[in-house]
């Protein structure tokens, strides 16, 4: 058994800078592809996970995307309100476990304050508070995992949603962005959901209605919160989150609430449409990444080939002093293969690193965690690059063997 490593290591050592640049080029080309694929998947999984808590959404007829973005991702913006009668109807429709109004308009230090019911806050009992308890009366608040308010803390909501742009703020400055007289007390903290709701403050919907001078669904002086409400005293709400009893009930409810007064949708439906668009973009980016990868690898291999041809004398000397053809073949093949395969592995790691970094940045903007996971697609990409490298490496190795020793010695 022969050992080509001394020559391979010596060549790498001698051409250290070239090796590093080559490895970096291959790794970067690989990383771009991996990051695009991993990031798109993370975005899909993260956004789908954020929608898990919303089986069926009801809103005013209009843009389904806007309804999902506003209620599921709390990208708060003015959307048409669905009439209070629709909420009343939802409450009494068979097959509904709970119908939760989602009302907003205020914030505290940038945390959106969402008015809803206790059943939605703990997702029908499946998400009990980590600490404290659910709100039980007006003026009580339940904070998400990322809200840095201790239990017992008191705060006054500010009018306006923090997500709005400065221009919007300036326009509305006189009428908005002022503190309300109501003071909330934090009574509980929800476990982390790794989505934008971790930054939200949940309060009885009646408080949000009352602050904005709307009827509360109860007698005026009534301090009661949550259903049953008096249908005649229910104001409009941006969205209603419906929890159906079963899958079949969910489909029935979707049909029942698709009326001239309301629309009903599964957030997953809207997300799938977004994913389809995202998928097209991803395909295009993947193609670009692949093209970059191919171009870089071809350029690198051509440079290596030229380098090997220039080293014909070195290989001729090795053969003259006793190295067999297989030894010289192994030296060249190993030198190329290790670079390409090493670049693929480093690129895989770099790609995941970039995807993780992008996730942090995007999560901060979108409000939900983007879980970066290993996928077969990226591994396949890395494996194909590595295998291509191993195969392509045979080309300069074979070419070098075609040069007769004596001719190689003459240089």
């Amino acid at each position: 058994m022969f050992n080509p490593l001394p020559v391979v290591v010596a060549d790498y050592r001698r051409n250290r800078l070239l090796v590093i640049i080559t490895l970096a080029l291959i790794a970067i080309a690989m990383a771009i592809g991996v990051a695009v694929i991993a990031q798109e998947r993370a975005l899909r999984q993260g956004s789908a996970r954020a929608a898990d808590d919303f089986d069926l959404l009801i809103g005013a007829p209009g843009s389904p995307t806007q309804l999902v973005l506003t209620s599921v991702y709390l990208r708060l913006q003015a959307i048409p309100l669905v009439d209070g009668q629709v909420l009343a109807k939802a409450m009494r429709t068979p097959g509904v476990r709970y119908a939760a109004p989602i009302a907003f308009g205020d914030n505290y230090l940038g945390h959106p304050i969402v008015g809803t019911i206790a059943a939605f806050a703990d997702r029908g009992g499946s998400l009990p508070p980590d600490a404290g308890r659910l709100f039980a009366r007006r003026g009580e608040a339940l904070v998400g995992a990322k809200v840095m308010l201790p239990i017992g803390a008191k705060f006054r909501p500010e009018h306006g949603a923090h997500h709005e742009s400065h221009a919007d703020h300036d326009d509305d400055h006189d009428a908005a962005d002022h503190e309300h007289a109501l003071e909330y007390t934090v009574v509980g903290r929800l476990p982390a959901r790794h989505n934008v709701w971790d930054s939200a403050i949940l309060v009885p919907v009646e408080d949000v209605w009352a602050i904005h001078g709307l009827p509360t669904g109860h007698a005026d002086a009534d301090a009661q919160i949550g259903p049953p409400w008096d249908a005649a005293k229910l104001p409009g709400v941006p969205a209603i989150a419906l929890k159906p009893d079963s899958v079949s009930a969910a489909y029935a409810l979707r049909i029942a609430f698709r009326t001239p007064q309301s629309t009903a949708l599964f957030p997953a439906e809207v997300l799938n449409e977004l994913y389809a668009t995202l998928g097209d973009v991803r395909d295009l980016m993947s193609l670009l990444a692949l093209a970059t990868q191919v171009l870089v690898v071809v350029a690198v291999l051509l440079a290596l080939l030229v380098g090997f041809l220039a080293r014909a004398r070195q290989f001729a000397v090795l053969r003259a002093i006793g190295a067999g053809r297989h030894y010289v073949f192994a030296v060249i093949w190993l030198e190329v293969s290790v670079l390409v395969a090493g670049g693929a592995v480093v690129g895989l790691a770099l790609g995941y690193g970039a995807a993780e970094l992008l996730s942090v940045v995007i999560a901060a903007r979108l409000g939900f965690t983007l879980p970066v996971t290993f996928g077969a697609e990226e591994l396949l990409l890395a494996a194909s690059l590595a295998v291509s490298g191993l195969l392509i490496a045979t080309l300069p190795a074979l070419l070098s063997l075609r040069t007769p020793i004596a001719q190689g010695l003459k240089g």
Partner: protein
Amino acid sequence: MATGDLHVSELSFRFAGQASDLLRVDQLSIAHGQTLGIRGASGAGKSTLLHCLAGIEPVDRGSIRWGGDDIAALPAAALARWRAQRLGLVFQDFHLVEGLSALGNILLPASFNSWRASPALKQRAGELLARVGAPNRRAELLSRGERQRVAVARALLFKPEVILADEPTASLDADNREIVSALLLDLVSEHGATLIVVSHEAHLLARLDRQLELRGGVLHEIEESHV
């Protein structure tokens, strides 16, 4: 027949496309342990003859017997093995592997047929390095004289029966020419190997047992009086 005995008969060689032979060697015999110098004008074919004797350049006709092996008839793999085990080659331009240390270069031929050099071989490489008096630095950091000394040590790693040297001192200054010539001859003498040197250097050729001149593709014996 000793493995360092050389018998060449009816050898002819021409480059592809040439009308006439570059080399015609009807008979050439060298006894094991003998030292032979070959001189001749530039382009006379001295290096080509040496390459033929090393099995590097395939001949058109004839046989080249080193001991019992006709290397002109050996297949490529066997020829590579023969060169690795029986032959030591010294080049004008040293041809060390840059990036490898002096010791690594001396041990390099060991990697052609084994994964790891034996402790005995490592010890021998160390002794050779000490004997040629070169520092154990990376090849590109050695002076020209040091590089050639390391190249001589590399050629002697497996105690070959045959040493072929192509202009071993031509690239060196006067001091190093003397040092390398003396070293080469001393080491060959110590090992009892056959040495064939192609050279223009009269001072080196004068120290060898025999001298031949290559003229018109034919070898001519040079009488001692003309040396």
